[in-house]
């Protein structure tokens, strides 16, 4: 009988560990001046250094060091007064020098933490994820496997290598083991990566695009029998490339490992690959013997020893922490928890804030971006901000607030702007979308509506105020939706003696 997720967790307690690789968004590579553009033609961003040609030497990108220190500071790490690069020696065709310049026992940032807030059955709960280290290293090239039936690495006839990515600065962020998450392990893992991504984004040190590989996550997971207090053997699932996949990979590994253990088998310490389609993991190629990376201090580079002044300057430049900012904005805008989460999940907090900063009402800004604009964006599979600018939305909201546009008219303005008919005012002019604010015009429509439904009008006269709704609706229809419903109501009730 196989265990499902819930029954697995009755018997076993999961322990998490997360390793995140972040590509920094520096202009040039970690150790040479080659550009770092994503998607450039193959081998157009290479030089003797990043191709590992004989005789070439690395020189560290200063901004990469500063970005890494910023990340460390934002994660409450200590910044090491002395830190060094080391060579991690192993052969692989996408690694030009056949060693990776990384950091080993002397990383630049150590001992930090990140609070991860997730929804539990008992309401929101904060899990403190402790960070072991943040260190610098370099990315590898990319290989393309050609021929064979699958197009995958297995069965390929030959491979083609592009070293544009080789040497792009990477920062590796490694957590300590995360214990006692119980059934929330998948959510904590996901929440951690999401919170980390927010921080990295706020620091402006990386594009953090998981789909392009600029943020990649490895998930380590082990199970221990409840109450045993003994940590189990862990598996390492590589390159999990979306938030949802992080959650699914943890869930999948819990179930897989629990079933193995339950049937008396052992969990093998190995590298596994996440399969996007099934949510399962499969083992990587098993190595007959463990690799021995033979780390030693990189003799071509000198130590990084940031002094207090340098660190303090960087600390001063730290932006507000995303979690604190969220709390501040939630209070200022008086947004309920659920709405706030929706905004964050939709990654529209920045956009809404910018709109509010341009004078828009927070509630309206939120509902426009998350409502109508997001709906259209979803239909077209683009980002809301690709459709319309923050300032256009702010302007439209301002017109609504002033009563010059109704919600219905505003929707048409938005539609027009998205259709590239021009600025909001140009769309309003072209489509004649002004609110009818002339009372005499409205009175004419009211008279018409009453004439068409005399019985309803009588009900209102007799004190049945809710019955006025139908008449207001009729007036709105008659004015083509360009009337302010509140004004219509006011005039109508007055006209009927109410």
């Amino acid at each position, binding site marked *: 009988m196989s265990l499902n997720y819930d029954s697995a967790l009755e018997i076993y307690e999961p322990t998490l560990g997360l390793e995140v690789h972040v590509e920094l968004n520096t202009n040039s590579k970690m150790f040479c001046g080659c550009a770092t553009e994503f998607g450039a033609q193959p*081998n157009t961003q290479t030089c003797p250094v990043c191709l590992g040609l004989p005789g070439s030497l690395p*020189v560290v990108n200063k*901004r990469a060091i500063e970005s890494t220190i910023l990340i460390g500071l934002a994660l409450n790490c200590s910044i090491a007064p002395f830190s060094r690069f080391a060579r991690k020696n192993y052969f692989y065709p996408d690694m030009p020098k056949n060693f990776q310049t990384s950091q080993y026992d002397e990383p630049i940032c150590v001992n930090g933490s990140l609070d991860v807030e997730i929804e539990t059955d008992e309401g929101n709960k904060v899990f403190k994820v402790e960070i072991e280290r943040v260190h610098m290293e370099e990315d590898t090239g990319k290989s393309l496997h050609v021929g064979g039936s699958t197009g995958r690495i297995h069965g390929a006839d030959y*491979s*083609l290598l592009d070293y544009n990515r080789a040497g792009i600065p990477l920062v590796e962020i490694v957590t300590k083991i995360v214990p006692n998450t119980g059934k929330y392990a998948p959510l904590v893992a996901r929440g951690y990566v999401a919170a980390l991504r927010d921080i990295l984004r706020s620091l402006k040190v990386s594009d953090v695009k998981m789909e392009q590989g600029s943020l990649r996550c490895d998930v380590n997971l082990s199970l221990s029998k409840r109450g045993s207090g003994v940590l189990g053997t862990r598996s390492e699932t590589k390159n999990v490339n979306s938030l949802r996949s992080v959650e699914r990979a943890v869930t999948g590994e819990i179930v897989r490992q629990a079933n193995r253990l339950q049937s008396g088998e052992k969990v093998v310490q190995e590298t596994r690959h996440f399969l996007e389609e099934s949510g399962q993991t499969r083992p990587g190629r098993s190595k007959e013997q463990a690799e021995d990376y033979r780390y030693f201090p990189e003799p071509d580079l000198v130590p990084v020893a940031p002094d207090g002044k340098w660190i303090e300057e960087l600390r001063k430049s730290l932006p507000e922490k995303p979690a604190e900012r969220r709390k501040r904005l939630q209070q200022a805008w008086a947004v309920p928890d659920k709405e706030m989460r929706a905004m964050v999940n939709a990654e529209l907090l920045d956009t809404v804030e910018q709109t509010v900063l341009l004078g828009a009402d927070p509630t309206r800004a939120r509902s426009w971006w998350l409502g109508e604009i997001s709906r259209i964006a979803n239909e077209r599979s683009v980002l809301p901000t690709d459709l319309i600018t923050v300032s256009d939305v702010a302007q439209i909201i301002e017109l609504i607030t002033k009563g010059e546009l109704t919600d219905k008219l505003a929707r048409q303005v938005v539609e027009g702007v998205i259709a590239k008919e021009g600025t909001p005012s140009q769309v309003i002019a072209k489509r004649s979308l002004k609110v009818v604010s002339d009372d005499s015009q409205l009175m004419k429509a009211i008279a018409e509506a009453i004439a068409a439904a005399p019985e309803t009008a009588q009900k209102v006269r007799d004190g049945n105020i809710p019955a006025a709704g139908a008449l207001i609706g009729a007036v709105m229809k008659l004015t083509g939706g360009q009337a302010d419903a509140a004004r219509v109501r006011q005039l109508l009730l007055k006209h009927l003696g109410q």
Partner: protein
Amino acid sequence: MAAISRDEVANLARLARISMSDAELDHLAGEMDVILGAVARVQEVAGADVPPTSHPLAVSNVTRDDVVTPSLTPEQALSGAPASSEQRFKVPKILGEE
């Protein structure tokens, strides 16, 4: 007893990605044994109180500004490659991922 066995040398050759014939391995194992016997004396004076020196220079924080400099042309980059195709380095099939 030998300081290093033939199997150990074979494993080192595997780590260093050098194919070796049986004769090469036998010969090298013998030589390695002699050399290791000679260099092992570093342990005589390397007390716990002696800090290691990995580099003759005592400088730190040598960096470059984050400025893009010209790359090689793809033709130059590929000029020394034993094989290339589609502006990429062409290699025999790669077994397995890292």
